[in-house]
């Protein structure tokens, strides 16, 4: 039942009510982070291993690839479009990079760059299709996803690529002070760069404006198509970097590399407050969404939840996060 608000509000203590409203608003505004802390403590109570440094390191590594993908997915969402092909782009481009090393005999570094360049090109191509050909992004990128998944299968012939150079896999295994892995630093750098891009540059401002009202943005002198194409291109680039990181970390590229990330990569930024209608969201929120999903995944994996229930419980936890967010938007936006 909907909340009944009386037209005859009590005359006493309106300040108290306003204050209460503010507190609830603040809580809901930061619900991703509160939910995250609550889950970490909760999982910690069920299994003491969860709160160990080793597990925290594990969570940050796991969050890296999802984080890069979440960032990549968030960019098209900010201009009120979508790119479903990003996880497939990750798999396909990393396979190209790996084959450039193993089959064409290139050194690993230029081979890896070729992989990332291919991913960037795919993003650019998606942008072209959506702007210049006016294709619907949902369907265009869905078809691109199927194409890339198929191409990966064709490239690998169903086998897993493991012939990766030591240099290539180094970054996935490297550690820094105190045994903390290197990979999450790359995510932090990427978050910082995209954060600066969105907040402080003309391009960033244009992205928010285009996502909010493309017609007004056009009249305001913003080249809307160009902004969208650049956004898709950056998303493709991030997918390429994520592909390299995933392959380096796992030291292998399977014939369906990346496809399991699809739904999580879309859910993470949305949980973190990126609007599917465009124009709203920031990198801090995206990081929150990514960490939340990773904690749920890792937490369910290491507590003694029977594996048959893991998917369902994880789904419920995401559902709750999104429901709380919906309440926030409804009453406190």
């Amino acid at each position, binding site marked *: *039942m*909907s909340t*009944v*608000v*009386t*037209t*005859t*509000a009590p*005359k006493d203590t*309106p300040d108290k009510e*306003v204050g209460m409203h503010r507190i609830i608003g603040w809580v809901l505004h930061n619900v991703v982070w509160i939910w995250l802390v609550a889950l970490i403590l909760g999982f910690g109570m069920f299994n003491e291993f969860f709160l160990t440094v080793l597990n925290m390191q594990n969570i940050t590594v796991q969050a890296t690839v999802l984080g890069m993908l979440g960032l990549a997915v968030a960019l098209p969402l900010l201009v009120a479009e979508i790119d479903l092909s990003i996880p497939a782009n990750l798999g396909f481009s990393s396979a190209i990079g790996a084959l450039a090393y193993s089959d064409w005999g290139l050194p690993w570094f230029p081979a890896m760059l070729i992989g990332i360049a291919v991913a960037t090109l795919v993003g650019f191509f998606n942008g072209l299709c959506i702007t210049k050909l006016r294709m619907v992004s949902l369907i265009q990128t869905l078809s691109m996803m199927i194409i890339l998944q198929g191409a990966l299968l064709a490239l690998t012939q169903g086998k897993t690529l493991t012939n990766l150079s030591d240099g290539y896999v180094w970054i996935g295994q490297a550690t820094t002070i105190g045994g903390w892995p290197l990979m999450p630093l790359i995510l932090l750098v990427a978050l910082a760069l995209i954060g600066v891009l969105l907040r*402080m*540059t*003309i*391009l960033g*401002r*244009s992205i*928010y*404006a285009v996502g*909010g*009202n493309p*017609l*007004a*943005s*056009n*009249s*305001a*002198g*913003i*080249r809307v198509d160009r902004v969208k194409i650049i956004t898709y291109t950056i998303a493709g680039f991030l997918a390429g970097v994520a592909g390299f990181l995933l392959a380096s970390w796992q030291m292998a590229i399977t014939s369906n590399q990346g496809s399991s990330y699809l739904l999580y990569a879309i859910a993470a930024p949305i949980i973190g407050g990126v609007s599917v209608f465009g*124009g*709203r969201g920031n990198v801090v929120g995206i990081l929150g969404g990514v960490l939340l999903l990773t904690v749920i995944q890792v937490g369910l994996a290491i507590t003694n939840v029977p594996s048959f229930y893991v998917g369902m419980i994880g789904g419920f936890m995401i559902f709750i996060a999104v429901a709380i967010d919906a309440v926030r938007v409804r009453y406190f936006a």
Partner: protein
Amino acid sequence: MAIQTATPPSTGTVSASGDQADIALRIENVSKAYGAFYALRSVSLNIRRGSIHGLLGENGAGKSTLVGIISGQRTPSSGEIFLNGKPIVGADVRAMEEAGVFLVTQEPMIIDHLSAAENLMLGIWPSKGGFVRWRTLKADAARMLTGSGIDPNVNAGRLNAVARRKLNILRAMFSGGKVIILDEPTAALTVPDRSQLFDFMRALKNDGVTFIFISHYNDEILEICDAVSVLRDGSLAGGSKDIAAMTSGQLSELVLGRDLVLFQRARRSFADEPVAIRLRNVAAKHVKLEELDIRRGEIVGFTGLPGAGAKELAKTIFGLNGTATGSVSLAGNEGEPLPDHPQAAFDRGIAYLSDDRRKDGVVGHLSIAENIALSSLERRATFGFVQGSAESSLCKTYFNSMGIKAPNAGAVVNTLSGGNQQKVCLGRVLATEPKLLILDEPTRGIDVGVKQDVLRIIDALSKTGVSIIIVSTDTDELVRAVDRVCVFRDGTIHETIIGDDITTERLRRAPSKPETVR
């Protein structure tokens, strides 16, 4: 959820005394606060049954808030509302509609690809076991639409503006509406359309329907209403139970709280001024213009019937009308092709303000400051990074000089009234420091006080040497604000009226051969 009738407050003296029996809607001490800001401050109103009650006020005076509360979209912070003598508690839109209170908004809520009959029955389909009974639906709709001149089978998308408004009012009535709130129903209607709508309202009034009629225009209020209430800054400024006792001057004074000084531009000859803008052989969709010169500091009005080319030429000059051929020369540069995109236009010193600010004027969810900066980001950036300090001083300048009513420049544009949104748009285009400023209906839908502000800003700007085009169908605005009027027909300038020849009578005669407008 049905309307709950609360027990009368202990101090209450509420009873259906004889004099209250013909009051359809009573509003008592209603306030609405957003934080420390009061959008409404203890407003009390009585609306008689079977009357048309005018609601007048500037943008931001609280009309929308009051109407929102009456229609159940918003809940008041304090105060009470009585419908037919019964207090209303905790009602939402649905509950208010069930009780017979309907809001008909400015934008008619009509689904274009459905028939008029289906639109009339939207959400209240006669049904049996979940299946729509089409025969009943069509018969009922046909009965409702008799006398309205609307064919029930025609696609709603093909109805004209007045028919769409009628359809909405009929829909409200058919759903059981006893109190119907009309939010600026005459916007964008022609004079004959308007009187047709008024006749229709009078006929319904005689059938016992109560109307709350919101308008910016005194003459409309005086023509159609029986009673009037004027809001100013969230409070009731005054009103009358008997409209016959009011004059237009009194209404304006109530709205503005002072004697309104209407703006009038001091006209002068521009023959000695240098030509600032030269348009040559412009051809585009609905536009075919051989030449037009605009002098430095001159304000030129473009007018004409829809599709005659006034609006289209304005858009063409700004690069918004598809592919165009022809040239535009601004001081110094000779015969450059027309800009192909707004960005190119801004770069050359041409700025344009759209007539539909919600559609393509503002980015609603961004702040005032972000909107003001939007068109001139590149001027205030190094290597693609926006310079925060330059930007904030720019925004402060325009926020203050435009006189935008908001707590601060960080306020979200969606929360502003129409007139203030228009000022934000104006600030945005002025920040590009244009040589030619094109304004498409710059005062449409904004109240008379803000309109004078906008016209004064434009006048002051022209004195700094900016040439200005105002596209307008508002004759009053043309008479008061421009130096020369170009009347358009068939995509080109049909006649030009200069200086003191620009009078209301002359302009009314101008588009003498009305084309058939679809």
